[in-house]
């Protein structure tokens, strides 16, 4: 066997591997992670019994501990002075000693943050950053298991790295906001502080959630509703006698949070993005201000459920209109990331069955929202994409399609195509066909009259070709070919398709298409270029125009040369 033949066989096997079905695994994986984390958190309290008592000591102990740590060994340079050799052998006792200091440092920083947020008296005894604590544990175990692989320098370097992670984790949003106005603002890279602020805001919101803040108000909630109490907290704690709750209110406000109370008597925190935006002015790009203000549009309840699909649809249109005014590329990328997840939620729900009822029929509320968006905003990319999606569901009598859970979301064109392309040169959805195109397809399929195709552009003819393939309608596929290419006759062609030849793979990861022009004549399109989400090589779908009608070249797919 020669190399060429082996490579050919390997290539064929690669194609078979690439056809491995893509099933939904996300929920099972996330559940396994949750279980794993829970197990680890549970175990944590068996071997860290001193943690709770340490928290109770509070700020003074924290400060003393920090002094102790900084005087002793968190600075690698100072630590080395006591060593016989900088790169000397590492002993288990030494690792234990260093990690004990790290853990103490962690708890001192935690106590500091709890004090600032008014969470010192929270009743839930889990660390504010359990994941980080787990990792410190894992790193320690790893170091103890592999002592021979470490020298003193590396151990100190590892400790320094962990310390920086602790510092970063325990940086409050208010501290990041201060940095925007500091004299050394210039030393941060473009969007570095903005990104840090977003992360810390989200992170500490989850801290409030994990801390079960409702349990702090047990006594007060017996006397008044959660909504009223939340209003008092948001006004800075006016009318609240309890000092601890007043410090909670102050800590939240200073860091960009407010509270909401629901009918079930629970209180939760929300990020006050508009307030944060106000704090940053004027030392921040105006796109970032708009970005934050958009984030203030609340479309989920505190359990992550969509409050109103109509409102969500309106928000999508608002995003589309605003995005076109953005000038900062990175913020634009962030906002596209946000709106893509909202769009996916609008058409697929937060989980695959959320937009369908128990009989797998599209919920009325969702259907009405789709109809409203596509009729009120038909000129927007969002409206056009929703229309196409709606029509496909309509053809299926609004029943959930069997492969719905595995379907890729087809995003409006502005979310996926680079913004320097002209609208008429870009194309988004190949399948499903719109109602109009489907009607023409059916007509062409039965009559094979080329005049029916006259009104369509290359993108649309390509869509017909993919649809014919999907339907196994190989005669229509054949009729779409240019007869000027050397090709088999119809009978041979049909025989070749006998085992089924799916183009499904070609569409995997597909995002948008552009016209592809002849190298020697940039005004003459010679096909359509398919672009993919993973930056994989784009494919050319070769076409030719004959008597004003776009035809498909035989064996149309080719990589650009």
């Amino acid at each position, binding site marked *: 066997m020669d190399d060429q033949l082996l490579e050919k066989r390997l290539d064929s096997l690669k194609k078979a591997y690439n056809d491995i079905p893509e099933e939904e695994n996300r929920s099972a994986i996330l559940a396994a992670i949750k279980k794993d984390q829970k197990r680890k958190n549970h175990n944590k309290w068996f071997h860290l019994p001193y943690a709770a008592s340490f928290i109770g000591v509070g700020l003074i102990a924290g400060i003393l501990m920090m002094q102790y740590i900084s005087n002793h060994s968190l600075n690698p340079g100072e630590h080395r002075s006591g060593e016989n050799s900088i790169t000397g052998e590492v002993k288990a006792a030494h690792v234990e000693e260093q990690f004990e200091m790290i853990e103490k440092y962690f708890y001192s920083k935690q106590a500091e943050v709890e004090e600032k947020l008014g969470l010192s008296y929270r009743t839930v005894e889990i660390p504010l950053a359990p994941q980080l604590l787990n990792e410190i544990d894992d790193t320690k175990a790893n170091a103890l298991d592999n002592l021979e692989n470490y020298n003193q320098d590396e151990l100190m370097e590892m400790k320094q790295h962990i310390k920086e992670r602790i510092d970063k984790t325990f940086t409050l949003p208010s501290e990041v906001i201060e940095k925007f106005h500091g004299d050394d603002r210039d030393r941060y890279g473009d969007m570095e502080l903005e990104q840090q602020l977003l992360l810390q805001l989200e992170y500490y919101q*989850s801290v409030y959630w994990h801390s079960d803040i409702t349990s702090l108000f047990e006594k007060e909630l017996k006397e008044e509703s959660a909504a009223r109490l939340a209003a008092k907290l948001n006004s800075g704690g006016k009318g609240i006698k309890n000092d601890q709750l007043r410090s909670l209110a102050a800590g939240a406000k200073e860091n960009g949070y407010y509270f909401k109370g629901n009918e079930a008597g629970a209180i939760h925190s929300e990020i006050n993005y508009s307030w944060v935006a106000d704090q940053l002015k004027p030392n921040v790009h105006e796109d970032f201000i708009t970005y934050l203000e958009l984030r203030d549009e609340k479309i989920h309840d505190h359990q992550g459920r969509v409050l109103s699909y109509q409102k969500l649809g309106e928000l999508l249109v608002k995003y589309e209109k605003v995005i076109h005014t953005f000038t900062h590329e990175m913020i634009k990328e962030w906002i596209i990331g946000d709106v893509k997840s909202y769009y996916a939620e609008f058409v697929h729900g937060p989980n695959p069955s959320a937009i369908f009822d128990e009989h797998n029929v599209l919920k009325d509320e969702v259907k009405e929202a789709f109809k409203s968006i596509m009729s009120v905003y038909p000129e927007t990319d969002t409206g056009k994409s929703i229309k196409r999606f709606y029509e496909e569901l309509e053809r299926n009598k609004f029943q959930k399609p069997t492969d719905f859970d595995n379907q890729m979301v087809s995003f409006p064109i502005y979310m996926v195509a680079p913004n320097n392309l002209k609208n008429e040169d870009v194309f988004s959805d190949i399948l499903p066909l719109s109602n109009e195109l489907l009607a023409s397809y059916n007509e062409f399929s039965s009559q094979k009259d080329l005049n029916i195709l006259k009104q369509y552009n290359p993108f649309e003819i390509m869509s017909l070709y993919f649809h014919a393939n999907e339907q196994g309608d190989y005669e229509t596929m054949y009729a779409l070919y240019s007869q000027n290419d050397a090709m088999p006759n119809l009978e041979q062609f049909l025989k070749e398709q006998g085992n089924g030849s799916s183009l499904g793979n070609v569409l995997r990861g597909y995002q948008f298409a552009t016209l592809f022009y002849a190298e020697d004549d940039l005004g003459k399109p010679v096909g359509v270029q398919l672009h993919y989400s993973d930056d994989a090589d784009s494919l050319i779908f070769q076409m030719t125009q004959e008597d004003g009608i776009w035809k498909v070249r035989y064996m149309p797919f080719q990589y650009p040369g």
Partner: protein
Amino acid sequence: MNDEELVFRARNGNMQAFAELIDIHTPTVKRFAFQLGNKYDDIDDITQEVFVRVFRFLDQFSHAKFTTWLYKITLNVTRDFARNKQRQIKKVLKFGKERTYNGKTAEENILRFEEDKTLHDCIQKLDEKYRIPIVLFYFHDKSYDEIADITGISLANVKTRLLRGKDHLKKLLALAEKREGENHG
């Protein structure tokens, strides 16, 4: 959003970002695990374990490319899984393979052509030190440098192992096809 940004967000507790990483990379992990010789029925368990470990050690991931790290973890999980599996096999006697709706095993549904199946089996017979570079080079389009990173061997070794692996593979394939020819008369 690219991998690095998603990792950055996930590391700071954003589960939506981590879910996106799962969606993007699950197909690669599944394919790689299958190509390394795992039974298709075990692939979901392996994939799950890979992402549990990714999440657990997210903070230790620093400068390396995320996918390189993911391949390394998949290799480790596969090795651990094989060790556990051997212990299980000693305890439990399995009767036949699980079949899918069309009466074929999952493997048979993926490797529909006899030639593909034979080559897949031959690759599994290769020593791991040849199998992994071949899988990464031919099925994941990895460069020599990337293979060296993932496997932890030198660049020169990657080249040697690919060459030798190919030679072994050709011999195994010729032998398998000779046997097949004899069986079919």
